[in-house]
């Protein structure tokens, strides 16, 4: 069960304690995240919402090992990642995190197959094994017939499916989705959400997703709100807004 009060037990897959992130801009210190706690168990699907600049993406970056916190700690599957070196963190990301970006971020000169294969090139898998994995991943996202298409030959929804295939191909511990439907029309957005839900339900994937869209967030097991660097559960938001949490 997702917790934000720091009371999660040792069975949490992702555990953040006292997490803080401070940026310095023009000599001014900006606290984006403040003493944030989070516990997510394996197989859970959590959505993060909040106004622009509330620190959603920053939180995702910290949990994904793309950025380092100013305070606190993050433990994923027993690994404390906060003090890992840059190179160790890179290796850790390759093994444990699958990223799904709003702008897809596919390499335009590579085919769908080659884009999905990218994370596997870092492994010791043989060419045949890589091919099998890539074909499976593209099959899961329903793009078996688009293997040799370049990103420019695909629709936005299809491009996002390739991104998802790239994120799951190495069977990571959890998936981080930053506005995965933010650049899509409603129909494509629904299809992508169906796919993410399938990954959670059928493949038991743990998914953390940032979104602005309440309809999309409603598909998650739980929605957490970031307000001024603090995480609150959706059902307690009203209380926070009316000042009850102060």
């Amino acid at each position, binding site marked *: 069960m997702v917790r934000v009060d720091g009371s999660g037990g040792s069975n949490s897959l992702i555990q953040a304690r006292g997490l803080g992130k401070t940026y310095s801009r023009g000599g001014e210190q900006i606290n984006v995240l403040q003493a944030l706690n989070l516990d997510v168990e394996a197989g859970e699907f959590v959505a993060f919402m909040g106004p622009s600049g509330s620190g959603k993406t920053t939180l995702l*970056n910290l949990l*994904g090992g*793309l*950025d380092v916190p100013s305070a606190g700690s993050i433990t994923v599957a027993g690994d404390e990642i906060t003090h890992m070196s*840059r*190179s160790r963190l*890179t*290796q850790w*990301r*390759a*093994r444990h995190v699958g*990223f799904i*970006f709003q*702008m897809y*971020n*596919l*390499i*335009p*000169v*590579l085919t769908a197959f*080659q884009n999905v294969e*990218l*994370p596997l*090139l*870092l492994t010791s898998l043989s*060419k045949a094994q890589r091919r099998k994995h890539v074909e499976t991943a593209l099959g899961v996202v329903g793009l078996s017939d688009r293997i040799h298409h370049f990103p420019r030959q695909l629709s936005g929804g299809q491009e996002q499916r390739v991104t998802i295939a*790239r994120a799951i191909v190495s069977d990571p511990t959890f998936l981080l989705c930053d506005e995965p439907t933010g650049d899509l029309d409603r129909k494509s957005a629904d299809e992508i959400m169906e796919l993410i839900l399938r990954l959670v339900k059928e493949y038991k994937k743990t998914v953390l997703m940032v979104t602005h869209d309440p309809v999309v967030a409603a598909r998650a097991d739980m929605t957490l709100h970031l307000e001024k660097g603090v995480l609150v559960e959706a059902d307690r938001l009203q209380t926070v807004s009316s000042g009850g949490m102060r």
Partner: protein
Amino acid sequence: MKFLGLIRANLFRKKIRFILTIGSFAVALFLFGVLAVVRVAFSGGIDIAGADRLVVINRTSIIQPLPLAYADKIRRIPGVKEITYANWFGGVYQDERNFFPQFAMDVDNWRKVYPEFDIPEEQWQNYVKDRQGAIAGAATAKRFGWKVGDRIPIKGTFLGGVWEFNLDGIYHGTRQADDETQFWFQWKRYEEQVPAQYKGHVGWYTLKVEHPDDALRISKAIDTEFANSPFETHTDTEKQFAAGWVKQFGNIQFLIMAIGGVVFFTLLLVTGNTMAIAVRERTGELAVLKAVGYSDRFVLVFVLFESLLVALIGGALGLALAKLFTLGGDPTRGLLPFFFLPGKAILAGLGVTLAVGAASGIIPAVGAMRLRVVDALRRV
């Protein structure tokens, strides 16, 4: 090998830019090759001149003669091993544009002093026995389609008349830079045919010394021996002599090298800048590579390798074109006997190519290595 697809896809990302970048490198390195050819053309004689050979000329100028009788006196100076002599003939073959150097030479000692010229023994013996004989360098024989046994008429310019020679042999240089344009004929024939005032005088002596370290002492001894005589001498090592000859063209060589050099480096700067821009455009993609687990070091090597590969393809193409350019031989028909692209210049060219590839790639590569994924993705 498994990253080959990624490298290839990036290289051909923008085909026109790729072709233009390769083309720029090719043009720059072609120019580098041509400059190397020009340098060799002007100074090739200096590079190959023997350190153990001295050249003795008239102190006033090389066009003033020296007495033939000096030969024995020079030979007696301690440290002199061999001596030979020659004179410039200055004739033309069929047409005045057909320029090549002709020397009346001493058959007795010539080959002892110039062992680098290779002539089949049988041809040499025929030549020695044939007062009207001649030997031509392989380049000149090829240029005019001569073969052994041909009768060659040479029209004298300052001596006048048409001198006919039997081509008894063709020599080859044993080193790449050896001059294969010369035409030799016997000193005795020359002596028999020239007017009385020219008889008994040589154009220059070339001598071989026992030890190159003695060259300076022997030069001074020769010049002292003939000081205050009607024919004072000026003795130099063959290398200095060749360098003095080249000095006459010094400004032309400097101008060609300077202009070519400026163009070369401008091209390289432009090319380097293009390559740096090409990397900057891919900041977001490099960030994605890092996000999915590619290390900083991989990204550094990846960007640098691509830069080196582009440079190497273009550079190798340019140098190959420069080599092709020289295969046809001296385009001036004899003015530049040393007309080739030396192996050292090719290696230097490849070195320059890799250095520029590395220089233009290292800044974007280090930038890519240091790139923070979150910053880069925010810019996308």
